[in-house]
């Protein structure tokens, strides 16, 4: 395994949904060795070229630690699968800042049928990156979206200002915890406009969940978002509201599609993700070198239009600026 894998069979395998090839492709996009990173870029290009631009549904599940993101994802995987879609789950967990190691524990609570080729679960360490995702998450979504109908992305338990998942998902679901002050925090942080769907989980806790829902609705009303952003009260534990959740997700995707913005949004988001990658890898410095944030964005946009994938576009900018 000292040479990167052959592309041709890998692409074929991924597009056919082969478990082993999808897994290898994910390992490739996580690989930091130069030759592998270059091959990963090539892989993403090919996969993008082969995946219809409007294929599938990418759903981001985000929210503070312990709200029940994993539990909800598990329930969703089962439901989406039963509706006939193939489903992949990418679960991002925090890395230890001290050792760089990570405990990717979410699988422990997943009971899935290992014989079902239509379900795939991969966990990924955040690598200490803020924002709730891992650096390779964008590329991983490209791989998974080429192989599966629905791609769920669970972020690390994020704080208030970290919503990277919006750059890789069509639908962003923010989960809040009853009786936790979460709602207040999110209002303060001003990210109420990011999610496409709000969930108050743990509805089985009773009144506190109702209170949280009311708070949320009031806050949305004040922010003028109330009309568009649905709020659902659900319980991953007792299955309350999950059918409604699946419906709401479908409805959001359908709206994107009908308004013709599904593909446009995916393009716009890819640029944003590229910008995030750029600052992650090179910091503000490269932005300055590239003529400021607006100029950098314009150039990334152009590169992506020409068929580059985000990681590649960032590298090109870096090279142009004499870095990398």
């Amino acid at each position, binding site marked *: 395994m000292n040479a990167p894998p052959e592309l041709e069979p890998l692409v074929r395998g991924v597009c056919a949904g082969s478990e082993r090839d999808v897994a290898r492709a994910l390992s490739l996009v996580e690989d930091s060795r130069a030759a592998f990173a270059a091959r990963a870029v090539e892989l993403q290009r090919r996969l993008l070229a082969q995946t219809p631009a409007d294929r599938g549904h990418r759903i981001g599940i985000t929210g503070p630690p312990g709200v029940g993101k994993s539990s909800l994802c598990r329930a969703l995987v089962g439901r989406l699968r039963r509706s006939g879609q193939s489903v992949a789950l990418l679960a991002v967990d925090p890395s230890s800042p*001290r050792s760089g*190691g990570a405990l990717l524990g979410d699988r422990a609570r997943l009971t899935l049928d290992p014989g079902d080729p239509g379900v795939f679960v991969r966990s990924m360490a955040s690598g200490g990156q803020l924002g709730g995702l891992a650096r390779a998450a964008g590329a991983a979504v490209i791989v998974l979206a080429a192989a599966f109908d629905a791609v769920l992305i669970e972020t690390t338990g994020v704080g208030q200002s970290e919503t990277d998942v919006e750059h890789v998902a069509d639908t962003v679901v923010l989960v809040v915890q009853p009786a936790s002050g979460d709602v207040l925090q999110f209002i303060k942080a001003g990210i109420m406009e990011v999610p496409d769907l709000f969930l108050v989980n743990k509805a089985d806790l009773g009144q506190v969940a109702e209170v949280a829902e009311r708070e949320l609705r009031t806050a949305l009303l004040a922010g003028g978002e109330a009309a568009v952003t649905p709020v659902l009260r659900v319980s991953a534990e007792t299955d309350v509201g999950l059918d409604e959740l699946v419906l709401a997700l479908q409805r959001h995707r359908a709206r994107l599609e009908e308004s013709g913005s599904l593909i446009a949004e995916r393009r716009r988001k890819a640029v944003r993700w590229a910008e995030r990658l750029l600052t992650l890898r090179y910091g503000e410095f490269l932005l300055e070198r590239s003529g400021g944030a607006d100029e950098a964005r314009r150039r990334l946009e152009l590169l992506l239009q020409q068929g580059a994938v985000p990681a590649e576009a960032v590298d090109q900018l870096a090279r142009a600026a004499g870095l990398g």
Partner: protein
Amino acid sequence: MQRDRPWILRTYSGHSTPSASNALYRANLARGQTGLSVAFDLPTQTGYDADHPLARGEVGRTGVPVGHLGDMEVLFDGLDLATMNTSMTINATAPWLMALYVACAERQGAPPTTLRGTTQNDIIKEYLSRGTYMLPPGPSLRLTADLVLYAVEHVPDFNPINVCSYHLQEAGATPEQELAYALCTAITVLDTVRERGIGPARLSSVFGRLSFFVNAGIRFVEEVCKLRAFAELWDRLGLERYGVADPKLRRFRYGVQVNSLGLTEAQPENNISRIVLQMLGVTLSRNVRARAIQLPAWNEALGLPRPFDQQLSLRAQQILAHETDLLEYPDLLDGSPVVAERTRQIREAAWAEVERVLASGGMVAAVESGDVKERLVASNAARLARIESGEQIVVGVNHFTESEPSPLLADGGAGAILRIDPRAEEEQRESLVAWRRQRDADAAARALDAVREAARSAANLMPASIAAARAGVTTGEWAAALRDVFGEYRAPTGVGAQAPTPVGDEVSPLRREVATLAREIGRRPKLLVGKPGLDGHSNGAEQIALRARDAGFEVVYEGIRSTPEEIAAAAVQEGAHVVGLSILSGAHLELVAETLGALRQRGGESIPVVVGGIIPDADAAVLLSSGVARVYTPKHYQVDSILSGLVEVVRQAHA
């Protein structure tokens, strides 16, 4: 003062088949044992029949399989249940085994009122330590209460529940935690029973029938104090929370198995000394003396004890009870200010923890959220770190390690443990099939429907279960009916939210090794820790997972009871660099072969597999030659060096 009566002397035993175990019990009783302690195999404990795929390799392995009334009758053949005192270590399926016991006694002509003994029936500690749960906590507690209420009414001399602190210490609990969480469990059970609307008189008798199963470690002075604190708190709880007026009903009654977690693989003969000293903790103080004692054997960490090994431990009890003058005196520790002070400290710390748990929503919530489990895992990590650093001396392990060659371990110790004949599993499967064939199928089906119906209603499950026992229903059928109604459950692993373990500073050589490896292979090494089969021993897997994370690995830990297919799927999908299987139940040969096979089938044959657990040397050789990269056993107590080994394994696989 009269000489104290000796406690009940037992040996925890059972294996292979009901008839083999029956022979064992007869021999034990002939040897002067005064009660029975039944070890069931894992399929029986988790509610699977011997022919269920999950039971493979486990049937009759660590205990006796009891699949139906016929098995129960063979098990107790020639043993008079009307006069026997039988302790059954059974939890998730306790109502069922009790139903079989009652039905079996009935056939012997012994009415329920004559039955004496114990069903463990403590489900909470299964989620925290022991792992043989089957349903979610809510329905499980309902079953617990059903059995308790049934027994109090119909089997009045039976202890229908034994709240266990034993297993908490075996999972790493400090004395304070052991005490606190056992009390929390007792409170949960009593509250559940009380909510069923029984009057104060009945509640008092339930309180009086509630006994404990505790642990006693090598720090035996502290352990005596723990037990005195236990008795004081129990008394207070009875009076204050449950209004139990009769002091006799508030007496703290307990049986014990002394600590086994501290028994070593290295220089195993030293364990005899440990066991004897640990026994002092539960016998010295007459006021809190154990009612029943079972001792592990000197070869505890090697594998299952042979009858001879168990005899040695039984004799140790007999010597203490009959040769020494211990039983002649009143309480030796009353009036000691030192003991009183240590007792007060433990009592107060334990009670503070009880209050914390109650204030944050009670024990069930603390189990479901993983809170208590995380605390146990953390305590165990601290314990192991002390041993690894040498701060806590373990003779023969981290101090005084030089040794004469041991005559006990001639030919590598191969003969020093009990080997279970794999044909026993076959035999049991066949007898199960024959049983199903000869019974009245319609009657069995009707009885099962009645169990299902009782489960859905608010009725007590015991009468329907006893009827099912009589009708020839099997253990797996009874359990499947309940799984249908209540669903299954996976308990939190306790490792997800762990702070860094106390070992290892910023720039340990191991971390550097891992970082170097990560550069070589392009990403952080990813370790999948898997526990295939029914084995619930999670300590090793948890600690390896934590320490690997601290060393810089990315670790995926699956929790207990995965199938080989699930592990293989996870290994491939996760892109694991190495799979680490942890197997302590003895089923390693079967389970490792199946996992390797499952990996091959999914195209994961290039992922190296290492195995840890109780693996006799001869088996280790078999595993290594079947393609396993490394085998680790308890004698590899230095986790850092195990992890270095994993770095090596990954590097070789990627060279």
